[in-house]
């Protein structure tokens, strides 16, 4: 539907490079205070054009408040927001934005098409056909006269996405879009998001289902207590979440000293009081053998891969202790 018509390969690559050097969303020291309490503190967020940005944080961390400020639904107490390098107040920029914040905002006594036509008219789209197009894209074209109040949660969410897609926006802000969806609904929405990304849209989405997010996101931002803890690309995250060899030993300090001496290229860190994580180990048996030969008891050992969820929880706990 929204396919780009690009001609030469060189031209395509140049345009792609240009696009990636532009920030679709850029905030500078964004702050939101509710009375004395800061919901968002000095948040500096950068979302490159053409990326799928996963915005992660615990409940109450400030995700929805941040997204609401980006959409103009909440006023920042301080700081600046720029969309596509223009101030957020610019009406031309707002037309490039499609939003689904928390639950889909729908009139329950209207049909899917009537809701879509309402939004189309709100945008000033002269042709009601755009409503039919987005309903088709989201698989809701055949809902007929069924009123939204009789829709399942998944259908409502899909209709919310359909409304966000009206006007062919360049940036989609989706707050918890997979909440309440069944596995099939989640898969369908994931496929839709991937398709939209392939069509060149920038997508900023928050979700608690980190496993699902990790399947599609190209960049991540982690927010904790209103502050952005980290922004990483998928590649950087994969590097950080590299395989490690974990051993459980009786004497952690002695084991550290021995590992440093015998394997100088291996990075070691303490996971807890009795576990050590070793990065860069190729043969775990060699480590075990060395420790046993030096009379350090090894209770358990094995290779692990840290996933997004584990990494997120690790960051929430304040970071690992590096030894």
């Amino acid at each position, binding site marked *: 539907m929204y396919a780009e018509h690009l001609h030469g390969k060189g031209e395509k690559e140049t345009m792609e490079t240009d696009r990636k050097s532009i920030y679709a969303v850029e905030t500078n020291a964004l702050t939101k205070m509710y009375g004395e309490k800061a919901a968002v503190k000095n948040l500096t967020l950068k979302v490159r054009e053409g990326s799928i940005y996963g915005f992660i944080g615990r409940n109450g961390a400030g995700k929805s408040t941040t997204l*609401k400020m980006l*959409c*103009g*639904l*909440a*006023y920042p107490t301080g700081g600046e927001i720029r969309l596509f390098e223009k101030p*957020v*107040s610019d*009406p031309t920029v*707002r*037309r490039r*934005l499609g*939003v689904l*914040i*928390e*639950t*889909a*905002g*729908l*009139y*329950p*006594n*209207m049909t899917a098409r*009537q*809701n879509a*036509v*309402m*939004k189309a*008219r*709100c*945008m*000033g789209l002269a042709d009601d056909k755009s409503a039919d197009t987005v309903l088709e894209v989201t698989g809701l074209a055949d809902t007929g006269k069924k009123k939204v109040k009789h829709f399942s949660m998944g259908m409502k969410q899909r209709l919310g996405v359909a*409304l966000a897609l009206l006007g062919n926006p360049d940036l989609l802000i989706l707050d918890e879009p997979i909440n309440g969806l069944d596995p099939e609904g989640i898969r369908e929405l994931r496929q839709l998001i991937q398709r939209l990304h392939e069509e060149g849209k920038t997508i900023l989405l928050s979700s608690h289902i980190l496993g699902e997010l990790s399947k599609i996101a190209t960049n991540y931002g982690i927010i904790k207590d209103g502050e952005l803890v980290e922004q990483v690309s998928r590649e950087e995250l994969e590097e950080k979440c590299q395989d490690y060899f974990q051993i459980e030993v009786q004497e952690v300090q002695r084991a550290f000293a021995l590992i440093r001496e015998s394997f100088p290229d291996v990075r070691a860190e303490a996971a807890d009081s009795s576990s050590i994580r070793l990065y860069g180990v190729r043969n775990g048996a060699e480590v075990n053998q060395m420790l046993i030969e030096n009379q350090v008891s090894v209770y358990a050992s094995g290779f692990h891969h840290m996933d997004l969820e584990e990494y997120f929880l690790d960051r929430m706990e304040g970071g690992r202790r590096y030894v």
Partner: protein
Amino acid sequence: MFNLLNMDLYRVKRSRSCYICLGIFLIGMVVMYGLLWLMAVPEGQKISVDIGMLTAVQVDEMSTIMDGTDSLILFRQASLDGGMYNIVLGVWVALFVCSDYQSGFIKNILALHQNRWNYVGSRIMTVGIVNLCCLILNLIFALAMNRVAGDMVPYAGWEDYLFYMSWVWLLTTAFASLMILICVLTRSVAAGSVAAVLLGSGVIVLPVYSILNMFHIGGWLEYSIYLTMTKGPGQYTAAKDLYVYVVGAGFLILYTVLTGIVLEKQDI
């Protein structure tokens, strides 16, 4: 703002509540003209006496009571002077505005329209248009009922209808803008409906007016929406009669500006 108005009118056409309100007005009118027929028309009076609704003495008095009554006065008394019209319109406004908040659709609107005055403007215009349609349909229906009942009362002059309908439209729209303000503040249909009943029926204004009048300081309340509607002129006789437009426009501007300021300060 006109995009929003287009959207609102699309919604109004598909909303049952609008037709229910109009139905209430028309049923009220039928009941009122039915009762009047029983009391003012000889055939009706005969039935009233037979069923014990009126005595022969009361029937004789009826012609005196009906003296000086025309179709405009009857129309005013039937729907507007008692506050019935404002109550029903107010409840409809509460349903219309609060459903934006309750459904969450306002997020779709305000994410697109950063200038929140557009939202206020479109709501006022929508309510003004619906109000105008309801008033005109009400009047046409009242005149038709009078004709069906055999011209029970004489018709007023067209200029009197025009004068009355124009200022009453302004005042009822001002009342609707007050309802929009209350709904934007509370975001609750219940609160909006209670406010519509209390403010539209004069339950608040009349006691305050009586109390203040005991100290001879209640005169300014005659310029409230409720008392202006009740006491406003039925025909234009002098320039002083134009005060009704000033009251209507003043309250409309005041409540519109207050709604805009409240909405500008709110997070959604």
